[in-house]
């Protein structure tokens, strides 16, 4: 069941996107997110959507693989869409008790749907094309300035990468302990939730003991290999920005500029157009409550 989650997984492929500096990708993802939030009009989303499709095509990650991870958040999206559709204020189209389907509601729901969809796909492209260790390296490098304020940036990055390394090991361990206790007659499938909670003790105690033992072993092994924190440490994989990274950064900034331009010019125009559409094709602005 845990295997089905592709969200946050890495997909091995050889694309320009895979080769980009993780920092550029991190900043790029941030820029993309910002671009989704500054304006709330459908033309901007269209532009963002086109941009995303191009990026997906470049990434060489199969769309199917990407969408498989979306299943888990399907309900969240459905809920958001319904909420916006029926609980918005504006021109009522149909009424069902306290629920009113409004024109603005539909418009908002569509916007919200695409905002969420692009947000999730956009950030999953980051993790799909970047290995966890690159990601931690990128984060460490981006947050480096914070270490001036005594934020333990290196230590946090190290913890993150160790966690990433040990998650599969501990999952395997959980499976082993579970089977061992099952063989001793433990009942993990009891219907009574309280009893089921009790069943977790034979699973969790050995798991924690094992996690601590591993942590102790690992600390010793790290010390034995001269680990003494981030001071005086060199890096095997140094991140260097190449021409490709600058080009990517340029494209991202151009994209952001484009969205801002679209947003500003459409801010006045769009309500007018919509009003025209709603009020029987006469050019009357929708009033002060903008969308």
């Amino acid at each position: 069941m845990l295997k089905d989650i592709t969200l946050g997984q890495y997909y091995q492929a050889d694309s320009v996107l895979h080769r980009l500096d993780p920092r550029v990708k991190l900043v790029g993802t941030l820029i993309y997110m910002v671009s989704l939030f500054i304006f709330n009009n459908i033309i901007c989303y269209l532009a963002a959507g086109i941009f995303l499709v191009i990026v997906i095509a470049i990434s060489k990650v199969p769309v199917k693989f990407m969408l498989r991870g979306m299943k888990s958040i399907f309900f969240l999206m459905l809920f958001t869409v319904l909420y916006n559709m029926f609980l918005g204020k504006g021109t009522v189209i149909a009424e069902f008790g306290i629920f009113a389907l409004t024109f603005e509601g539909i418009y908002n729901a569509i916007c919200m749907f695409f905002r969420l969809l692009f947000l999730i796909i956009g950030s999953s492209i980051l993790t799909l094309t970047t290995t966890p260790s690159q990601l931690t390296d990128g984060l460490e490098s981006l947050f480096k300035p914070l270490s001036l304020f005594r934020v333990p940036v290196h230590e946090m990055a190290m913890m993150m990468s160790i966690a990433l390394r040990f998650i599969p090991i501990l999952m395997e361990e959980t499976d082993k302990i579970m089977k061992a206790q099952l063989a001793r007659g433990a009942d993990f499938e009891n219907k009574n939730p309280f009893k089921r909670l009790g069943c977790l003790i034979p699973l969790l105690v050995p798991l924690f003991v094992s996690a601590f033992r591993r942590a102790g072993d690992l600390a010793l092994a790290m010390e034995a290999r001269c680990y003494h924190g981030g001071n005086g440490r060199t890096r095997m994989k140094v991140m260097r920005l190449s021409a490709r990274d600058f080009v990517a950064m340029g494209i991202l900034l151009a994209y952001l500029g484009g969205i801002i331009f679209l947003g500003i010019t459409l801010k006045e125009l769009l309500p007018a157009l919509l009003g025209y559409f709603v009020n029987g094709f006469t050019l009357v602005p929708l009033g002060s409550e903008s969308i």
Partner: protein
Amino acid sequence: MNSSIVSMKKISYEYRRVDDDGHELEAIHALDQVDLDVKTGDFITILGHNGSGKSTLAKHINALLFPTEGTVLVDGYDTAEEKNLLTIRQCAGMIFQNPDNQIIGTVVEEDVGFGPENMGVPTEEIWERVDESLKTVEMNEYRKASPQKLSGGQKQRVSIAGVLAMHPKCIIMDEPTAMLDPQGRREVIRAARALNSVEKITIILITHYMEEAIYSDRIFVMDRGKIVMQGTPKEIFSAPDELNNYHMTLPMATELSYRLKEKGMNLSEGILSRKELVKELTAKIKDAGTVQELVAKADYPSDDRRKEETEVILEAKNLTFEYEAKTAMCVKAIDDLSVAIRAGEFLGIVGHTGSGKTTLIQLLDALIKPSSGTVLLNGEDVFNKKYDRKKLRRSVGIVFQYPEYQLFETTVLKDVCFGPKNLGLSEKEAEEAAKEALKEVGISEEYYEVSPFEISGGQKRRVAIAGVLAMNPSVLILDEPTAGLDPKGREEILGLLKKLNHSGMTVLLVSHSMDDVARYAKRILVLDKGNIKYDGNVREVFTHADELEQIGLAVPEVTYIMRDLKKSGMNVSTDILNLDEAVNEIGRVLC
């Protein structure tokens, strides 16, 4: 050349155990006035039973622990001085027992680069060092792999590369082979020997396997925090009685040579390897001039004494188990396997890592569901929806690998009670069953109320086995029950299994050790690629030595000795399984 790389002068290390209120319970002398001197370029081995202080000693060389008394000099640097710390750790690298817990990187090459990164080596040079070290341990082709995907032996070689990249003068290996299968063990020992002979790196190897010690320049034997014996392998293994006092055994070839000497044969002292023994024995034949005519083939005690067939208790029928079923990555761990196990049998299950042994035993206890086929217990289908699994769990007990990792209760007694209670026994009944099981495995009453996390490793293992025995199963399945134990611990567990089998319990022993299987099992099941390669009488199966080797297995060490003798012209029978038989057979030909 002959300077000392490690020199310890009268070092002691003690720690205090305190109870919850901070009162001192006892002071434990893990090391007691140890003197140790290791010459640069030597290969030395430290032997000793579990808890004799070997690991504590090793950690002193790497400045992970500091002596409470005495001084430790590594390459002339005193470990007690803080400023020397990194120099010492760079100079004396360390490999630990558990292959999973010492790999830090998520990619092989990143892990190898970890040490040099910490030392502040310039980036360019780190890459050179990583390349060079991975090539030395022959792991270059796996450099982009995730450590997850490697075998135990490969993981240990990555760890060795990680230490090599720091350009150490000395490598300490703390039971690097204890958690590996025979093939992984060979890989690691071969790598260690190559480092010593080619790269001239001093190796300090800590091990429980006598066979790994025979190539070293010097051996140190530890007991209760002291070094009790030291010398060359020849000297050490020429004192079998003294070794036995410290719970150590002899290499198989040495043991056989002693047994032959007892029979009045004139062999030289300190035979260590198979090669030496075979050379000596064949020389004997040549001295005698002619090879004696074969008398009638010697009679071995028949293995089939209990020929009368008992009824089938547990049966697998056309079992198939697929991982990642219905995907492109579908792997058949078990492929249409059928086997019938009879009541009272002692069945050995052997197979290369990944041959499906563990999957098979999990299927036999219905811990996983087969893709097709089924398991019958006393003729009843255990995968039938109406079948009560408790009945199966009561009858078939499984002791998994490293069972001590499943202990969880506050006291030993409570932990052992867990199984019986799950089966619906009352508190009192469960306790009785638990006490009986604990007695069986040799855990005395004083430990009943002790936390299972505070007893020694060997005791934990036995408590965990008691936890399964307390359920009073009629079939007991054990997956590598002796892994990581010292020779004495191994004997104890195997002796226990023999006793249980004699009292009528059906025992299934999954093991990497062909010697153990040959000594205890009557019937043997050889798995390869999820199916049965051989199923039969132990003696018969081990005649297929070449075929077994092809699937990554071996035959017992004695059998190898007999085969080598035969190859060098001695007319001995090769279907020999244990020392007694070997002594008789060689005696028959030579006397």
